[in-house]
């Protein structure tokens, strides 16, 4: 069992490693000199050279990568090139350390993500199972249609509509959320939730219907086992694994959605931070955010795999042998 966990962790580490390599490549290998991007096209060549030196851009890429990883593991992600600068007069003081800059947004996004995720999981399971059990009925069909509408609207549209309704028509909620308060959280969470639930609920529904069609559920009915018990002891355990998989896959969509939602509501999280960093070509910051955002999917899958492993007796014994 330990072997299995170690192997999985190894895979996760390798994936994250590859991720960081990609990010690093993207920001450093592709054409576009960051120094020029910072200083503007008409920058004096000497100034460009100085910046390049300061950013370490003159060394071979592999060295830079290794240095970067080494620093990253000690939570040093370099320094921002757009924030905390004081006019390049004294080159010694470049911007604020990235690690400082990301702490607060990280915390904020974590709050937003956890609240949204918990609500998402609960609602998806409830609605997904409910509609699956009553598949084909009027209520199922109407829920499907509503779900379709939510899928159809991209996050920014959904958010905009919610803003109109709740901020202008009935001014009960704030339209921007610069600070983290429960009222400020409502709309961002609602937007994220509604944009995802159409998809996840549908997938869970299909998964549950599939289990309902399996032979062992049919046989259970033929053995006279009451419906409630079938749901509890036959359906849910078998539907658990595929459902978790769905959420692992949804993690990607979730992160993307979070970026847009944070930007839309001015929520100070890593999503909006990432967007500003990209807009400002703040490479060290971009790198740090990209790794965090990209790593979420890998981590989510890992967590799902571990939970699946622990809840499935078959896998456990296979792993042990």
């Amino acid at each position: 069992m330990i072997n299995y966990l170690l192997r999985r962790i190894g895979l996760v580490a390798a994936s994250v490693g590859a991720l960081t390599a990609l990010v690093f490549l993207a920001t450093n290998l592709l054409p576009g000199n960051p120094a020029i991007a910072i200083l503007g096209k008409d920058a004096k060549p000497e100034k460009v050279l100085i910046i390049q030196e300061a950013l370490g851009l003159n060394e071979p890429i592999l060295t830079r990568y290794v240095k970067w990883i080494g620093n990253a593991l000690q939570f040093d992600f370099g320094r921002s090139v757009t924030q905390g600068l004081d006019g390049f007069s004294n080159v010694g003081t470049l911007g604020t350390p990235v690690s400082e800059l990301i702490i607060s947004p990280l915390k904020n996004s974590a709050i937003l993500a956890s609240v949204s995720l918990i609500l998402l999981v609960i609602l998806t399971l409830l609605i997904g199972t409910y509609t699956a059990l009553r598949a084909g009925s009027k209520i199922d069909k109407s829920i499907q249609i509503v779900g379709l509408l939510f899928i159809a609207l991209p996050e920014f549209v959904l958010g905009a509509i919610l803003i109109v309704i709740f901020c202008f028509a009935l001014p009960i909620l704030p339209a921007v959320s610069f600070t983290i308060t429960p009222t400020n959280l409502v709309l961002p969470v609602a937007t994220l939730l509604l944009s995802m639930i159409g998809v996840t609920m549908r997938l869970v529904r299909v998964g549950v219907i599939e289990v309902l069609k399996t032979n062992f559920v049919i046989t259970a009915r033929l053995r006279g086992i009451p419906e409630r018990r079938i749901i509890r002891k036959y359906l849910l355990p078998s539907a658990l694994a595929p459902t978790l998989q769905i959420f692992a896959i949804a993690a990607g969509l979730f992160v993307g959605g979070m970026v847009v939602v944070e930007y839309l509501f001015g929520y100070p999280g890593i999503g909006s931070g990432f967007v500003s960093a990209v807009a400002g070509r703040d490479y060290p910051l971009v790198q740090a955010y990209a790794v965090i955002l990209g790593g979420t999917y890998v981590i989510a899958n890992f967590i799902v795999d571990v939970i699946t492993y622990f809840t499935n007796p078959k896998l456990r014994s296979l792993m042990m042998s």
Partner: protein
Amino acid sequence: MKFLSKTSLSTRVGITMVLFIFCISIFGSFLAPNDPNEFIGEAFALPFKGFPLGLDSYGRDSLSRFLVGGRYALMISIVGYLFGAMAGLFLGLFSVYSRGKTDSALAWFSEVLIGFPSLVLMLLLVAALGPSFWVLVLALSMVNLPRVFRLVRSAAQAARESSYVEIAESRGEGKLFIMFREISPSVMPPFLVDAGVRIPASILLVASLSFLGLGIQPPASDWGLIISENRMALTINPLSVTLPILSLAILMIGINLALDGLQEKRKDSFKLGIE
């Protein structure tokens, strides 16, 4: 087109909706009554003669801006999809054919790439290379490649392990023959369906990027950009954003309806396992 009769109402409605939006994107520029970039008057002016939707945040004709707002996104989506999908298709077939270590390595690599949420990946590339047409195309290809790869790979598994492929191998057929003559026909149906979903979804991605200000740049027009530029005035003159919002919505609803219809049909045609 005899398969049209096999499709359900859902699919037909869905495809119509998608095609309708495509048409607006393609032909919109011919229908625009005014120059979308010309400053006419006061920002957010209400509709008046010759300007049925009024003016946008910069005082330009909202209708014309909307009509030309689809074409870049559509072009970028189609080209970006083609590059990514062709590569993904070939690599997917190759990976499934090769099995073993090659397959595992390629699969792992594509999983890492997929791990990047599409938006984040595109933003990353834009950060590196700036928001231009070809950068967006490249970014979309990178988004589409691993996803198409994964789809092709999973669709081709069953065919790869079937007896008829084995018989072909024992006959001594070459790699390319098996990949394209024996395996790819099984992959085509899900691949085409996926294309039908992925291209409109790409349009949405471009719109999202534009909304964030990092996609199609002003003064060019894009639906996402329009929404971003005009959202502050939703209560003053919502007309500037209603059409782009509607178009994106119709696009997505259309895809999903079409997909639903396909699921239904597949269930229907499956002959009951009587014995």
